[in-house]
């Protein structure tokens, strides 16, 4: 069996750690780099930036990966009744200077996900808007990295993109959930062929994607079968949307929230009685 090592590269705005054998690690990073090129808001020619610069004037065709992320973003917008909204997030990110305006990119006028239309791989904006995939693309990249690693024949591995984590293999992977402000350990979770993600509203660079905040929670952790859903669901949980429980059920996910003092509360989904 090939030796298992961990490598780390700065990608998609954070530090991406991949554990596995060397060949699988390389394949994993290639997938992350591809997702980065397609969906970086900082690269003026990424699919995402082309949407934000031109899609209010003409339809913009995107890669199948970008289309997959946008489709899932729509899915979670619908099911969360707008608590997850990549168009509202983009408007807020531009307003706060968190995302750049590229040459020829209009200031967002629209701030609602229904202003974006998709048909196959073609995207159109009804009005100038800014789409921010920061709340979901990182999870997608992690999932693609896992798929790329498995395709090399690697039997066990872990991908961690700034706290969006997916692991696979016969042994569960231990993950420590930390308080974002001081990195104090607050919970231990074992990930077994699944994913976990944490989002926070504390000032550490990740708060730009969180639109609303319910009562006193500072972070939300979600465990789900895949990292893209875990990533998006952390935003829905933090929003306090009444649809949260249903969204967790749809994704077969579980969640807990943490308050400023470090107290943990499991999110109780109002489930349908068996």
């Amino acid at each position, binding site marked *: 069996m090939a030796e298992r090592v*961990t*490598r*780390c*590269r*700065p*990608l998609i*705005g*954070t*530090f991406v*750690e991949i*554990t596995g054998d060397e060949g699988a690690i390389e394949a994993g990073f290639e997938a992350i780099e591809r997702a980065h090129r397609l969906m970086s808001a900082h690269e003026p020619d990424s699919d995402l930036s082309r949407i934000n610069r031109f899609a209010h004037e003409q339809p913009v065709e995107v890669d199948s990966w970008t289309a997959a992320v946008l489709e899932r973003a729509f899915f979670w917008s619908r099911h969360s009744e707008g608590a997850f909204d990549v168009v509202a997030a983009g408007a807020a990110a531009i307003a706060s200077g968190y995302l750049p305006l590229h040459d020829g990119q209009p200031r967002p006028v629209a701030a609602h996900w229904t202003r974006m239309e998709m048909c196959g791989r073609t995207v159109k904006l009804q009005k100038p808007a800014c789409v921010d995939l920061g709340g979901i693309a*990182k999870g997608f990249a992690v999932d693609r990295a896992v798929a790329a690693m498995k395709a090399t024949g690697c039997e066990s591995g*872990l991908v*961690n993109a*700034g*706290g*969006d*984590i997916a*692991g696979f293999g016969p042994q569960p*992977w*231990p*993950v*420590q*959930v*930390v*308080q*974002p402000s*001081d*990195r*104090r*350990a*607050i*919970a*231990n*979770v074992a*990930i077994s062929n699944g994913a*976990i*993600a*944490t*989002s*926070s509203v*504390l000032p*550490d*660079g*990740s708060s730009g994607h969180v639109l609303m905040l319910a009562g006193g929670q500072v*972070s939300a*952790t979600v*465990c789900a079968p895949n990292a893209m859903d875990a990533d998006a669901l952390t935003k829905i949980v933090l929003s306090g949307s009444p649809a949260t429980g249903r969204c967790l059920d749809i994704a077969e996910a*579980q969640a*807990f929230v943490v308050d400023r003092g*470090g107290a*943990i509360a*499991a*999110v*109780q*989904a109002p*489930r349908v009685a*068996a």
Partner: protein
Amino acid sequence: MPQSGASWFTIVPAAIAAVAPAPACATVYMSVEQAAHAMFAGAKMVDRSITFTDAQRKAIAKASRASVPKTQHVWEAREGSSRVGWFIVDRVLGKHEYITYAVALTPDGAVKRIEILEYRETYGGEVRNAGWRQQFVGKKFGSQLKLGGDIKNISGATLSSRHITDGVRRLLATWQLVLRNG
């Protein structure tokens, strides 16, 4: 049956968390040697480390909008008589962490690859600047960094890699103003 909400995670007792708040955690991913091999397999590494003149530091700082160290660890990667690239080991101080990383540049100064070598979190702790510097001053190629223990898989808030981006911009200015003509 509804699943018990608490079954999938265990809470770290507050007492333990309070006694050991955020231990300074160092993660070593690769040694300098391993990174050089991964980036330029088979190439000969020629030490071309730089001690900057004041004028060079000023020019690089102006071009990259970053403060410039006095020295820079640089190797030229050679295959036979031709230059195949540059290998640079650098460090940046983030908000709460020190990061040592390696950058491979093509002969014409494009970033080929970046690998994080060591990541040291200092949450809540005092910044031990001198101690950190000591670790790399006089480090020669071939000297093995001590590899750390198990890597912790941490899910918390995203850590920004912006400091690396700033560092790489400084290294590209260093290539432009110093290495390119060397």
